[in-house]
């Protein structure tokens, strides 16, 4: 039987298939095509093997994240439930004063939404842009459900004067298309003025830009501290005799295997004002009973607990790289007259860079997205942007806002990754 992969078959064709200068298999097909076909079959088989993984990633990762990101610029809370008014907005350009047709459309939509009990969704959407208007929709809805007579303008204004607000009509026009950039504007403390221009929100409402800065700053501080603490440990791990280094390794890994919540709660026990450390300090007489240190429920608590939790992510990549460094290089440098500092700085340290890069990137990116630990030990000054995302996900249920904040965070991390790639090169990254 001729088989495209059988070397003998190929040789056979060399002998028989030279007529047109092309190699042929035993059954006369061009060799290149037979080879390509059999290779593509092998590729298909290989692809089938990774198919479950691909499907898994697609279903659990790409699709949900994509859906979430879509919410950041797509919100049909208003447009889906107010079709008639949406049509009026389409037919009349911005700046047109609402005529009786507009009021009729508004009344019809309100009536239908109140009947279908979707009026709360409509009100919530407009409330994002004009705070304080949610109850305008729901209370009007309750009255409209009992029936409403034309002329609608007078009837609606009778129910509530607020319907005449130009700001409300402008917000309804903006919301009549589901695509919106308003959530991104809000995520950087900006909003649209009545005339549609972008302005900063009032100073006392500004919070997100400051939290983004704080998140990146604290993540940087934590990365530097984990490096300062982790580097010597990783070096010890890599150079100590096997028995001792194994023991040390267990000490590094043990907290890594312990539940995150347990570790965070332990820090609360240690650091709180009536906690172990303060008790010891008072007992030793270092501080008086009335001057117990505030070490938790603030930024200090966040930094301490997160450094502890993220330390293994710095130590492990460093260790794996350091273990492969040949000690004879440093010895050679010393024998050629370098001081121990020079030998470390010029010979040893540069060789640890791939591990350092991997560790720093891991710690930084994990720190940027951390939220359980700051939520528990951060008090008010140790909250990060991820706590706001969590709040919008679970409390205010403004998922569009959460998605916009998350998209900005994701964008910032990708940008950082790109900068890292340009400066250091992702190929130089060693995770272990």
């Amino acid at each position: 039987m001729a088989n495209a992969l059988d070397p003998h078959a190929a040789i056979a064709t060399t002998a028989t298939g030279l007529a047109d200068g092309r190699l042929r298999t035993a059954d006369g097909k061009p060799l290149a095509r037979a080879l390509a076909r059999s290779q593509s079959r092998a590729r298909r088989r290989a692809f089938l093997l990774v198919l479950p993984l691909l499907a898994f990633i697609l279903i659990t990762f790409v699709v949900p994240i994509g859906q979430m990101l879509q919410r950041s610029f797509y919100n049909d809370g208003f447009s889906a439930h107010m079709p008639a008014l949406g049509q009026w907005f389409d037919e009349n350009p911005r700046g047109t004063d609402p005529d009786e047709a507009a009021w009729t459309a508004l009344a019809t939509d309100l009536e239908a939404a109140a009947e279908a009990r979707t009026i709360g969704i409509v009100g919530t959407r407009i409330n994002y842009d004009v705070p304080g208007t949610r109850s305008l929709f729901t209370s009007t809805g309750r009255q409209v459900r009992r029936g409403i007579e034309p002329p609608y303008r007078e009837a609606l204004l009778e129910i509530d004067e607020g319907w005449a607000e130009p700001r409300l009509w402008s917000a309804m026009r903006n919301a009549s298309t589901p695509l919106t950039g308003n959530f991104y504007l809000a995520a950087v403390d900006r909003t649209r003025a009545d005339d549609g221009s972008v302005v900063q929100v009032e100073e006392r409402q500004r919070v997100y830009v400051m939290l983004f800065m704080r998140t990146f700053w604290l993540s940087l501080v934590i990365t530097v501290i984990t490096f300062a603490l982790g580097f010597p440990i990783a070096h010890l791990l890599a150079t100590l005799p096997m028995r001792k280094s194994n023991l040390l390794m267990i000490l590094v890994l043990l907290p890594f295997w312990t539940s995150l919540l347990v570790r965070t709660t332990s820090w609360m026990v240690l650091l709180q004002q009536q906690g172990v450390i303060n008790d010891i300090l008072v007992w030793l007489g270092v501080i008086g009973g009335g001057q117990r240190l505030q070490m938790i429920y603030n930024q200090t608590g966040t930094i301490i607990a997160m450094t502890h939790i993220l330390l293994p992510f710095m130590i492990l990549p460093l260790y794996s790289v350091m273990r492969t460094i040949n000690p004879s290089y440093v010895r050679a440098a010393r024998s050629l007259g370098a001081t121990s500092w020079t030998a470390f700085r010029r010979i040893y340290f540069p060789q640890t860079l791939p591990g350092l890069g991997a560790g720093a990137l891991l710690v930084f990116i994990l720190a940027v997205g951390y939220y359980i630990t700051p939520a528990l030990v951060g008090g008010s000054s140790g909250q990060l942007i991820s706590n706001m995302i969590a709040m919008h996900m679970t409390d205010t249920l403004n998922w569009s806002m959460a998605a916009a904040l998350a998209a900005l965070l994701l964008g910032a991390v990708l940008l950082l990754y790109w900068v890292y790639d340009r400066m250091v090169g992702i190929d130089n990254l060693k995770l272990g």
Partner: protein
Amino acid sequence: MKTTLVLSTALAGMAFAAAAQEVNVVSWGGAYEVSQVEAYNKPFTAETGITVNMIAADNPATPLKAQIEARNVTGDVFDIEVSDAIRLCDEGALMEINPDDLPAAPDGTPASEDFIEGALQDCAVANIFWGTVIAFDGSKFEGEKPTSAADFFDTEKFPGKRGLPKNPKRTLYLALIADGASPDEIYDLLGTPEGVDRAFAKLDSIKNDVVWWEAGAQPVQLLADGEVVMTTGYNGRFFDAMVGEKKPFEIIWDGQYMDMDMFVIPKDAPNPEAAMEYLKFATDTQRLADQAKYIAYGPSRQSSAALVGMYQDGTTEMAPHMPTNPEHMTTAVMDDPEFWADHDAELTERFNAWLAGS
């Protein structure tokens, strides 16, 4: 073929029976959960054979909203605040509840007249009235003890940390009361920028002395640990610690914040029939009165009030510990669900900005 059909029918029947035999109730955990387990769940299971799975949350509205938004509802009955109940009802997420379906009072008064005003909503039935109050550890004060909301904000007279919940709803009103505002002008003030500024200015004066709490069990713990000298919290939890665990806590009723807890059933509840059974059972006159045997929250039916007697220890009269006691109501602020449905998002944002700023 026939066997398969019979078998699959039997299996389907069993699956249905199994599904109908349980109801998932999401509530607030802690001492409050215990009172519901004792007063509602145990007699309910004994009578109907339906198992009740109790699930605890810091605020059950949070998982409820998330489950609705994700279109994957797993709870059947949720115990939530009025403002959340009204809001979710307006969004069409909850089953409407007909008051005529609820059991009448023992003397025959229909449910619609027996429940206290506001306790019956389109999609929700209240079970209790509860108060957010200030409590302190009496053993920590040697001389004068704090007596008012103003004392809570006076860190010179009463030094030490304060516990406050991390949300605008139960902090801003207290700041205004402490600043001398009267209880009935709170929402007028919070509706204006000047009033909100005034509340935040008052909060600023103790910002560095505040430990923020989120779950209802936390303030009791903070007070017991000595982490704070005074904290606000839910009155039933403090009662449980004071009477149940003999802690030397004392309650300041001045400026209490009154709210109702309501049972709601989401539209997509997995066991709607069992949920409705549970809701009817739990809100009848006797069960509501029974709950007061385990925790100091006021029942939402007028007919239950007469049946409230002693705490489960048999020696403590419940009336002086109830938030609904007339003496405690003089400076009480009632929850305004309409106001919070409108302004919650805006004030939460402002509150977070204030909290995050140094």
